[in-house]
């Protein structure tokens, strides 16, 4: 599903050049659950942003479903992103002025889906995430775990092929963190590809494969669980 060839990213200011990613060669197969680990500033989030088409690399190639997308325009990126990718953030990134229902509804609006269909889909996903009873609440009225469940619901609402999660449990206590992890495992089991950045070894162990980044380079890859593409069928 994802393949990068010599992907590099350099942040330039007038005086300094910082290499965030150095010739990353990396592959994610359909249905895989990948964890990316590494110390602060090693380029984890930059990589995730590039994979999510929120940012561009300076050089190298990025193939998404076999298509080279690294030179896509902003508009093309937006078109590809919506409906295909879901994002989960450490800080949830819910919109404070919208209630739970409306937050989850947002990606469907971006896809111009009719209102009645939106309602059905949102209700269904909220039930599934067990937050249906909170649909009219605002983010500030929810606990961290609940907020993250809303964020996951929002990421899933369009049935994306790929979920990009940037430290989804980073702001949660262990109990809530565990719940979110179970949710992700369940999604993965249903066939969604997941790339997750995490600091937690324990959570990384739940992935098929762990990629260790250091100073913008892949130091090691470790396979924890055997990933069998066939099990998808």
């Amino acid at each position, binding site marked *: 599903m994802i393949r990068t060839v010599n992907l590099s990213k350099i942040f330039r200011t007038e005086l300094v050049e910082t290499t965030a990613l150095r010739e990353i060669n990396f592959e994610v197969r359909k249905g895989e659950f990948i964890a990316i680990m590494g110390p602060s500033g090693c380029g984890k989030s930059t990589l995730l942003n590039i994979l999510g088409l929120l940012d561009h690399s300076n050089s190298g190639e990025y193939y998404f479903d076999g298509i080279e997308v690294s030179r896509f325009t902003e*508009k093309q990126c*937006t*078109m590809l992103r919506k409906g295909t990718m879901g994002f989960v953030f450490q800080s949830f990134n819910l*919109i404070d*002025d919208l209630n739970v229902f*409306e937050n989850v509804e947002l990606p469907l*609006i*971006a*896809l111009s889906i009719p209102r009645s269909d939106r309602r059905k889909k949102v209700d269904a996903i909220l039930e599934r995430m067990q937050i249906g009873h909170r649909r009219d609440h605002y983010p500030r009225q929810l606990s961290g775990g609940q907020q993250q469940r809303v964020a996951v619901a929002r990421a899933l609402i369009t049935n994306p092929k790929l979920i990009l999660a940037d430290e989804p449990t980073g702001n949660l206590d262990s109990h809530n963190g565990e719940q979110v992890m179970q949710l992700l495992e369940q999604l993965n089991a249903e066939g969604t590809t997941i790339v997750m950045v995490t600091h937690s070894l324990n959570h990384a162990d739940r992935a098929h494969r762990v990629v260790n980044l250091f100073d913008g380079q892949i130091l090691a890859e470790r396979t924890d669980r055997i990933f069998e593409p066939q099990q998808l069928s």
Partner: protein
Amino acid sequence: MIRQSLYMLFRRFINDSLFSFINLTNLTVGFATFILLTQFIASMFSWDKHNENYERIYRVQLFQDQPENRVRHSSSITAALSRHELTKLPEIEKIVLMHDVGDNNKSGVFLSVDKKDQFLIRYGYYADQTVFDIFTFEFIEGVPQKALTEPFSVVLSRTVAQKLFPSGKALGKQIYGENKVVLTVSGVYEDMPEKSNWQPAFLIPMQSFTAFTGWSDYTENYWAYSFYTYVLLKPNADPANVDAQIHDALKDYRKEHYPYLRPMSMLYIKAYYQNDMLIALGLFSFIALLILVLSAINYINLQTANAITRFREIGIKKTLGFTKKQLWSQFILESVTLAFTGGVLGLILAHLMTPAFNRMIGINALTSIFSDWKLVLIMLGVSILTGFLSGIHPAFAISAFNPVTALKQKFIQEETNGITLKKILVTAQFSISLFLLIVSAIIYKQTAYMLTCDMGFESQNLLFANITTNGSGSFDALRQRLISHPEIADACQADYIPYILPGGNEMNWEGGDPEEKVFVRISHIGYDFVSTFQMNITTGRNFSREYPADLDKCLVNETAVRVFGWKDPIGKHIRTNNKNVEVIGVIRDYIVFSVHNPTEPHMYRLLPDSISTDKVYAVRYLPGHEKEAREIVRNEFERAFPLDAFEFRHIQSLIQNENAALAWQRLMKVSGFFALFSVIISSIGLFGLILFFSRHKMKEIGIRKVLGFSFTSLYYTMASSFIRLFIVSIFIAWPLSYFVYLYLPGAHKYGIQLGEFVLCTLITLAVAVATISYQIIKAVRTKAVEVLKDE
């Protein structure tokens, strides 16, 4: 999506109520001010429109020499021109010839039912029956067809009818004019609307003109410019054709005097070719537009400032796949919605303020905005357009944010060197505020100057009356009796006094080209005119009882000396009516008619000692003795004029009712109005601006605080960028304001002073510094940790 955007807008509006309040107040006040000023300007162009034939009515006027010469136009022409030349023209459907009853410039005439209760009525006219065909009258009693057909009839306006006959009908009743003639009321008409240039108090048939004035051959007279003529052109007739045919109609009588038609639509705003009113209204339109622009700039600044609080929303939406276009539309929609709301509230505010505005300017110039749906729609259109145009910049800025940085809520630092749009907006904001304030001050001072300036004579403690009499006697004797009272300082007679404009003639002067003539105004004055009005003789001497030959001599004013190019005026001669008249003294220039007009050459002849016919009497009393003086004056004049009606008034009443003074007073009040509102809008704008900057600089302040910077240095950091832009705006606003001063109408201008500019600048700066301080103190007081933890 639209629904959701509006929901969010509404919720944010409730959640950030201070900001929303400021934002909406800015728009509402801006629109309301714009609407009121627009209405005021529009009302100036809608005078006389109550006449059904408005489009086809023209006044016949004439100019001498050049059309551009503003003082040399006459709104009245000769009767012969009207009776003989105009009747030949096929383009003209109806003609009305009119003449003042009495002298409307002086005081009017006295009307009474019983010769006892006299009412001084100004603005009565002799008029042909056709006046009702040309102008639109609304009759309450009688019918227009018969109103002016009988000699010695009179048609009264409602106001005059109610004065004379407070309880009942006037039709068919008899009244006395000046206690001398009997008139029969043949009709009563509704008073002309306020916005009518011509406000006749009563009308008398033209056919009685000779009987009342003793002037029999007036219809053959090509010299006396005292008759008004209005014509109604046939539909589709070209006024230019008429102009061409009448242009030389007077060439056999007066060279270089050219009659022409002036459309009724022009009579109020540009009766002759002078642009004063248009310049003033143009200035006002410009100011109205500036206020709207100022309000829009504020709005842009406020919206952009607010965008910073929405980084996260933008980041999230972009991540979730909202396109730039979708976000752009969302922000434009928000902007238009807010501006539209401001527009609606502005309309309501304007509607509520209309009565106060009318009271302020002294006439009911404005009707409620809601009575004109076209204007309402236009204003709502303007508000939508404002919202759209002001939304473009914030919408672009917002929708262009990179989602990653937006999510991290990092402020995208704009380059600090070079000219950015933001700097332009801020400078424009400062410049417009400063400009509006200085211009208001200039207009205010100019008006105040016109109303209180040194007029060249002392206008306080001075009573005057115009008395027309068949009696005779010595004025000196009357004067002696008057000044024997200690309360009376002086008294004089004259045919014209300041603010009652005399006619004049074209004259040659000694040392000048015999072919060249100059129009010189002529008035006749008694020995004590100069002393009563406390004028000054700059050269030579005043008329004196010790020189009987003074009856053949004259005085002139300084302007005449200047125009004639005389070095030593005493002993020089002026040629008028084929006689050479010797100059014995020069009166210092004074304002003859209006501060608005330039002073013209003026010649003064001595009045023989007699109280016969038509004179103006002026009495100066000692300050603080007005009550006693009025009593003395009434008694003495009743003794001298037992059969005549008169009424003494303050000369101030003439000055304050003078049209130019009224117009300027109105302008002063309106300018005060917009000054106040532009200061309010500017303050709101500054508040928004500084909010914008301080939200930008929060992090910097946080870091500086952690590092132990003092309050003063924090203050300096925040304020210095504003002060620089403020200085730039001074360089823009000052010259522009001075330009306005230069082009401000009025012949007599006050001396502009640097102090006014400095004061206005200090006021604007004070508002700026106060707002800056509020924001800075707020920013500085915020805990550094709060600011920094987002990073």
